[in-house]
C-alpha cells in the first residue's frame, strides 16, 4: 500500500494550526462521548471476546483515513440511524446520545475524506474528455464544421466506466493508445487548418438539375429494372479538367421490394429533383443523387452548395440533405443539413467537409481514380398506415402516401484549400520580421489559447526550439511551424486542467477558475471575454464570477453542459447502440415497417430530448423538481410525430404543452424509457434498476453472474408463460435468493408499464391502447398507482424516500466538480441544497450555488 505514505505526507502538510485545534476537539469528543457509548452498546458483540462480522469497536480512536475503516464506521452509522443496531432486544440509546455519536462519525469521516483528497476542492489531475479535447483543438485552431457528420471524439478510446461521468478525474487514466490516437488526430487537424499548398488542379463542378430533369424525362422507354440510373455529364467549371457525371439512382417504380409503398423520388422540370425520404438505413440508400468526380482530392475542404427547398405536408417532418462518400457497398455519411426553405423559394445550403478527417476507404478510392458523392434525403419516415389483413389490393394499386420532399434545383461541388486559412494561426509576415520572429509571434498567441493561460517566455522558447530543430532538418517554414502546433496539442498542458500545488489550500487562480468554468459550461476552452476577465483578475470577484456564469449559460453553447451531463447521467447513448437486428427479432413481421429504430435521425432526436429539456428548464430557472414533473415537452417535428402531437414543424427543439401521457419531464421521455428498457420487450427489472440507480440515486449491488433475463426464462420454462408479467417478476425475485435488493427494484419497474421498449404507448395488434398495470412501490414501501403518483412521491419531501432532487443534486455536483463525491463533500452539498431550498431557487440558482461553493473555487 504505497499510497498511504503519500497520504500521510499530505496529512502532515495540511494540518495547520487551525485544524490542529479542531483535531484536538475531535479527540476529546471521542474520549468523552463515543468511547462510553460504544462500551455500553457495541463492544459486547463487537469487541475482544466476540467480534461479530469481523467488526470491533473497542480500539482507540479510529483514523478514518483508512478507507476500509471509514466504510465500517459509516455502515455502523447508517445502521444505527435506521435503528437496525443495536439489535432488537438490546437496550436502545436515547435520541440525544445517538445524535452526538452520529454527528461525530460524520465529522470524522468528512475530515478524513478531505485529507485523503488533499484539499477541499482537490481533484486528481483532470484530463480533457475525448469530446472536450476535440472541441478545444478545433477551437484553438479556428476550425468549425457545423454540418460535418462524423464524431471525431470517437477516435479516442474512452476509459471511464459506463455509469460514471467521463470527466471524473478519479477514473481517468492515460495510456499509450490514447496518446497515439490523439497525436494522429492532432496532426490531421493541424493539416486541415494549415494546408501545405492549394490543390494543384482546382475541382469545381456545377449543375442545374432542371436541365438534368429535362434530359432524363426525354428518355422514351420505361425503366427496365427497379434500380435505374439516369446519367449526364457535368463539365468542369475550370478549363482542362475532365467531366464529372451525375446520376439519379433509385427504386424508380414497380414492385416495392416486398415493402408497402413508400414515397418515390420524382422529377419536376420546373423545380428539379424531388428526393423522397429514404426508407432504408442499413446498407445503401434506396434513392439518391450520385455525383462522380473524376479526380480524387486527398486533402482540402469539400464544399457542397445546393439550392434546395422542402415541401412538407401537414404532420410531416423537414427533409435532411445528407452527403456521403460511397465506394461499392460502403457508404460513409460525411455531412447533414436540415432543409427548411419553402418549395417555391429555395435557398442555398452549404456543407463543408474536411476530407482529411473522413475515414473512408481512401486507398480503394485512389485505386478507382474517382470519388463518388451521394446525396439523399435522410429524413425520418412517417408511420405508414397498417395494411389491413383483408386488404386484397396489389402493392402497385396502393397509392403512395404524401411525403416530405427534398427539392434540389442546383448543385455545385468544389474542393477548396481550407475553410479560411485562419489569420490567428498564421498571417503574413510583418515588414522586417524574420521567419523566426513570425513563428514566435503566432506561437505565443496559440500556446496561450491552447494552455488556457498566459505562457512564459521559456515555454514559447521550447516550442520555438522545436521549430528550429525542424528547420535545421530541412523542412519548410510551414511544416516546422505545424510541428510546434502539433506538439502543443498533445502536450500535458493541453491534455490536463493543471492546477499546480501549493503548500496550503488555496483559492484557484483566475485562469484556473476560467478553465473550470468554461469546461463546465461549454465543454471547451475559455473564450476571449473569459480570458480577459481572467487576465485582469476580476473573475475572482464573486459578482464577476456570477456575471460570467450567466453569460456562459445564456449562450447556446451551454448546450454542451446539458448534453454531456444528461447523456451520461441517463445513459442515453445506449439508445443509439441498441442493435437493430435484436430489436427486429423481437418484433413480428407485420410491424417491421414502422420501427422507429430504423431511423437514425429519430434515434438521435430521442437522445437529444432530455438535454434539451434540461436546457429549457435551466434557462427558465425552473425548480429541479420540474425535471420529474413538467407541463411542457421540448420536442421537434420528428418527436412530435412520434408522440402524436400536432402543430410542431421544424427540426429545432422548442417547448410545447405536454399531452397527458408525457407530463413527467424526463420520466416520460421516450429516450429515457428506451435507455431503461435496453431493447427488450420484457424489461421490468432492468427498468427498475435504471430508475433506482439513476433517478433515485441508490446504488444496487451487481447481481450474481448466473441470473437469467426474464425473456430468456420464458424460453426455458414454458409454465412461466401462463403468468402475467407481474406474477412472473414476483416469481423471479422470490426464486432467486435476491429478494433483499429486488424488493426494492421490482415494484419500481412497473411504473413504465404503459410504454413499450421504444417509449411509445403500448398498443396491441389492432392499435388499441393496452391496459397497463402501473402500480408499484417505492423502495421505502410507499405505494403509487401510476406514473403521475410516482413522480409526485418522488418530489414531495419525506424522511425515508430519497428525494429525486437529492439524487439529482449529487449527480450534478459530481459533474460540476469533475470528480466522484466523497464524504467530505456532504456538508458543502447540503448547504448548497438548503440555500437553494430556502430561496426557492431553480436549476440556475442551484448551478450558481455549486459554482460559488468552496470545492469549485478552491484547490
Amino acid at each position: 500500500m504505497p499510497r498511504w505514505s503519500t497520504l500521510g505526507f499530505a496529512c502532515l502538510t495540511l494540518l495547520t494550526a487551525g485544524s490542529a485545534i479542531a483535531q484536538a476537539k475531535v479527540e476529546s469528543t471521542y474520549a468523552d462521548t463515543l468511547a462510553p457509548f460504544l462500551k455500553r452498546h457495541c463492544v459486547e458483540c463487537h469487541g475482544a471476546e466476540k467480534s461479530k462480522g469481523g467488526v470491533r469497536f473497542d480500539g482507540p480512536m479510529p483514523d478514518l483515513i483508512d478507507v476500509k475503516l471509514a466504510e465500517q464506521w459509516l455502515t455502523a452509522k447508517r445502521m444505527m440511524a435506521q435503528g437496525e443496531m443495536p439489535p432488537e432486544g438490546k437496550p436502545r440509546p436515547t435520541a440525544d446520545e445517538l445524535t452526538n455519536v452520529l454527528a461525530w462519525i460524520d465529522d470524522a469521516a468528512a475530515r478524513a475524506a478531505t485529507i485523503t483528497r488533499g484539499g477541499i476542492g482537490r481533484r486528481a489531475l483532470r484530463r480533457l474528455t475525448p469530446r472536450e479535447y476535440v472541441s478545444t483543438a478545433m477551437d484553438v485552431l479556428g476550425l468549425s464544421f457545423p454540418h460535418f457528420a462524423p464524431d471525431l471524439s470517437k477516435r479516442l478510446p474512452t476509459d471511464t466506466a459506463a455509469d460514471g461521468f467521463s470527466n471524473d478525474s478519479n477514473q481517468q487514466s492515460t495510456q499509450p493508445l490514447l496518446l497515439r490516437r490523439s497525436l494522429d488526430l492532432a496532426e490531421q487537424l493541424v493539416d486541415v487548418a494549415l494546408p501545405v499548398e492549394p490543390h494543384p488542379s482546382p475541382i469545381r463542378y456545377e449543375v442545374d438539375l432542371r436541365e438534368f430533369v429535362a434530359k432524363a424525362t426525354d428518355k422514351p422507354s420505361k425503366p427496365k429494372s427497379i434500380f435505374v440510373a439516369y446519367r449526364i455529364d457535368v463539365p468542369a467549371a475550370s478549363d482542362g479538367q475532365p467531366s464529372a457525371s451525375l446520376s439519379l439512382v433509385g427504386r424508380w417504380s414497380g414492385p416495392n421490394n416486398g415493402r408497402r409503398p413508400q414515397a418515390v423520388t420524382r422529377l419536376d422540370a420546373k423545380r428539379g429533383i424531388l428526393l423522397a425520404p429514404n426508407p432504408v438505413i442499413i446498407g445503401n440508400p434506396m434513392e439518391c443523387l450520385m455525383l462522380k468526380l473524376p479526380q480524387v482530392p486527398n486533402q482540402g475542404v469539400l464544399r457542397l452548395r445546393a439550392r434546395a427547398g422542402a415541401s412538407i405536408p401537414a404532420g410531416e417532418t423537414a427533409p435532411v440533405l445528407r452527403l456521403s462518400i460511397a465506394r461499392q457497398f460502403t457508404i460513409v455519411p460525411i455531412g447533414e443539413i436540415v432543409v427548411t426553405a419553402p418549395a417555391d423559394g429555395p435557398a442555398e445550403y452549404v456543407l463543408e467537409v474536411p476530407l482529411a478527417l473522413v475515414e473512408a476507404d481512401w486507398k480503394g478510392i485512389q485505386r478507382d481514380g474517382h470519388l463518388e458523392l451521394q446525396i439523399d434525403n435522410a429524413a425520418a419516415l412517417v408511420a405508414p398506415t397498417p395494411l389491413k389483413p383483408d386488404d386484397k389490393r396489389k402493392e402497385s394499386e396502393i397509392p403512395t402516401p404524401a411525403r416530405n420532399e427534398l427539392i434540389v434545383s442546383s448543385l455545385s461541388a468544389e474542393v477548396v484549400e481550407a475553410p479560411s486559412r485562419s489569420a490567428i494561426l498564421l498571417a503574413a509576415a510583418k515588414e522586417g520580421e524574420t521567419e523566426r520572429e513570425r513563428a514566435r509571434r503566432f506561437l505565443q498567441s496559440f500556446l496561450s489559447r491552447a494552455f488556457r493561460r498566459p505562457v512564459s517566455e521559456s515555454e514559447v522558447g521550447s516550442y520555438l526550439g522545436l521549430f528550429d530543430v525542424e528547420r535545421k532538418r530541412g523542412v519548410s517554414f510551414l511544416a516546422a511551424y505545424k510541428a510546434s502546433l502539433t506538439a502543443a496539442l498533445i502536450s500535458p498542458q493541453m491534455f490536463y486542467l493543471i492546477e499546480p500545488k501549493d503548500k496550503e489550500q488555496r483559492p484557484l487562480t483566475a485562469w484556473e477558475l476560467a478553465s473550470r468554468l468554461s469546461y463546465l459550461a461549454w465543454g471547451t476552452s475559455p473564450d476571449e471575454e473569459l480570458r480577459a476577465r481572467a487576465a485582469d483578475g476580476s473573475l475572482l470577484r464573486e459578482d464577476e464570477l456570477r456575471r460570467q456564469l450567466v453569460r456562459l449559460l445564456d449562450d447556446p453553447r451551454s448546450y454542451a453542459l446539458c448534453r454531456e451531463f444528461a447523456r451520461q447521467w441517463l445513459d442515453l447513448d445506449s439508445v443509439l447502440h441498441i442493435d437493430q437486428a435484436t430489436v427486429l427479432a423481437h418484433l413480428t413481421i407485420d410491424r417491421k415497417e414502422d420501427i422507429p429504430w430504423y431511423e437514425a435521425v429519430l434515434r438521435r432526436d430521442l437522445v437529444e430530448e432530455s438535454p434539451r429539456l434540461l436546457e429549457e428548464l435551466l434557462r427558465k430557472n425552473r425548480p429541479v423538481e420540474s425535471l420529474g414533473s413538467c407541463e411542457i415537452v421540448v420536442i421537434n417535428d420528428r418527436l412530435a410525430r412520434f408522440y402524436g402531437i400536432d402543430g410542431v414543424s421544424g427540426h429545432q427543439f422548442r417547448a410545447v404543452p405536454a399531452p397527458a401521457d408525457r407530463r413527467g419531464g424526463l420520466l416520460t421521455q421516450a429516450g429515457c424509457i428506451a435507455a431503461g428498457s435496453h431493447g427488450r420487450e420484457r424489461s421490468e427489472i432492468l427498468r427498475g434498476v435504471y430508475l433506482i440507480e439513476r433517478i433515485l440515486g441508490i446504488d444496487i449491488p451487481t447481481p450474481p453472474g448466473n441470473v437469467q433475463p426474464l425473456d430468456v426464462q420464458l424460453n426455458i420454462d414454458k409454465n412461466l408463460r401462463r403468468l402475467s408479467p407481474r406474477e412472473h417478476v414476483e416469481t423471479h425475485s422470490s426464486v432467486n435468493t435476491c429478494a433483499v435488493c429486488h424488493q426494492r427494484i421490482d415494484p419500481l419497474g412497473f411504473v413504465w408499464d404503459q410504454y413499450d421498449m421504444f417509449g411509445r404507448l403500448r398498443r396491441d395488434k389492432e392499435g388499441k391502447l393496452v391496459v397497463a398495470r402501473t402500480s408499484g412501490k417505492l423502495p421505502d414501501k410507499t405505494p403509487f398507482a401510476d406514473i403521475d403518483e410516482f413522480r409526485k412521491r418522488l418530489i414531495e419531501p419525506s424522511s425515508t424516500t430519497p428525494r429525486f432532487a437529492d439524487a439529482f443534486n449529487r449527480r450534478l455536483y459530481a459533474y460540476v466538480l469533475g470528480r466522484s463525491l466523497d464524504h467530505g463533500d456532504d456538508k458543502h452539498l447540503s448547504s448548497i441544497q438548503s440555500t437553494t431550498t430556502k430561496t426557492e431557487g431553480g436549476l440556475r440558482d442551484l448551478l450558481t450555488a455549486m459554482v460559488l461553493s468552496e470545492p469549485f473555487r478552491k484547490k
Partner: protein
Amino acid sequence: MNHLRTTRRQFLSASGVCLALPWLERFASANDAVKPPNRAVFLFVPNGVNMWEWHPATTGKDYELTPPMRNLAGLRDRFTALSGLQHIKAGGGHQEAALWLTGNPNYASKKEIYVTPNTISIDQHIARAMGRQTRWPSMVVGADGGQYTCSFNADGRPVLADFDLASIFAELVGADPKGRLPQRGSILDLVADQATRLRRELGKSDERKLDEYVESIRAVEKRVQADIAWKSLLRRDSIQEDRLNLRADPHNTPDGVDFVDTMLELIYLALRIDCTRVVAFSAYRSSQSCVLKHLGFDVHNEGHSSGDARPEDKPKQFANISKADAWWTQRLARFLDRLRTTREGEHDMLRHTTVLYGSGMSWPATHRNHNLPILLAGGEGLGFAHGRHIAFNGQRKDVPNDKREHLDSPKLGPDAVSMSDLLRTISERIGVPAEGFGESRRVLAELLA
C-alpha cells in the same frame, strides 16, 4: 536538461535500430543457426461452450475429436485438448475475461468494468520481459476494445484493447505518407520535456497521473523510433490486402466474420514481420454477442436458455451454441493453418508460436468457470508435445444424468492444477519465469515432450 534529452534520444535510437530488425530479415541474411523467436498468442472467446459436446470422452493420444474440434482435424497433432482446468478460488460470472489471463481470485467488477485493481495478466508479464525486443511490446486487441480486455498491466489496470482495424494496419506497415516519423520524434521529445518540467509543480497525487502521461509518451516514442529504424526494411510481400477488410465494423451484423478474420490476419501479420511476439485477443464482452450476430441468434441468451438442461431437452439452444463453437474453431483452424503454412527456417511459424485458445466460462447458462474449454496449439519448438487430450484434476466428461452431477465443481485437493499453472508453463517455456503467478503451484510437465 538538454544533455539528458540527448542521451535518452540516443539510447532510444540505438535500441530502436537493433530491436527493429525483423527477425525474418535477419534470418534471411544469416545462416540457419539463428533460432526463431518465441511467441505467445492468447485468443479469448466469451460465453463458454456447449459442454455436453466440447470435451472428448477419453484421454491420451487416441481420443476422438469432438464435433467442434473437427474443424481442427487437419491440425490434430499440432494441438492439445485440455480438461479440468479452472481458476481455483475465483467465482463465475461476467468478469471472466479479466480472470482468464490473470487468475486473480480477489478481482471484483461491476458491469464488466473493474472496481478493484486486477493483477498483471500473463501476456503483459511476458511482454514486460520480452517486449523490448520488438516494435510493439505486445498487441492487445478485441472487438469491443477499450476496457473490455483480458490484458492488465503491472498496476492491475486494464490495458486498453485496440479495435480500429485500419489504424492497426497503418501502424503495422508503418504507413507514413508524409515522412512524419522524424518530426514525431522531435514532437514527443518536446512534450516529454514539458511533462518533466510540469512534474515539479504538481502535488504527489497529480504526479501519479502525470506519470501515466509520461509513460504513454515513452511508449509512443519507442514505437516511433522502432518505426523509423524498421521503415527501410519494410517488406510488403507478406501482406495480402485482399484478406483484409479494414472497414469491417464489429457492431454491424454482417461484418462480424470479416472483422474477426481481418483481426486474426493482422495478428498473423504482426507476428510474421516480427512486430510483436505477444498477442492477446479478447473477442467481445460476454454479456453481448457482438461479432456473432450474423449467426441469427444471441449467443448470450442462447447460453442462458440452455439452462444446464439435458441436451435432448433443449436441442435448439445447444445446437445454436454448438454452431457458435464451431464458428470459432473454424476461425482458429484458419489462423493456425496460416502459421503452419508459413515457413520459418527448417520448420513452420507455428512451431515457435504458442497459441492458447479458450473461454473463461464453461457452462454458458450459469457462467460457471470450472472445467474450462481450453486448447493449446503450437510451440513444439518450446517443448510442447501435442496430439493428445489431457484431463487434469481427475476431470471426467460430463454425461447427462439425473443427479445433475455436472453442476458441482470437483473436490480439489491441495495439489490441484489451476489455469494459472498452464499460464505459468507457457510463460516459462517462452523463457520468462513466472513462479507463483496467480494461483500457480507448479509447471505442467505433462504438456511437455
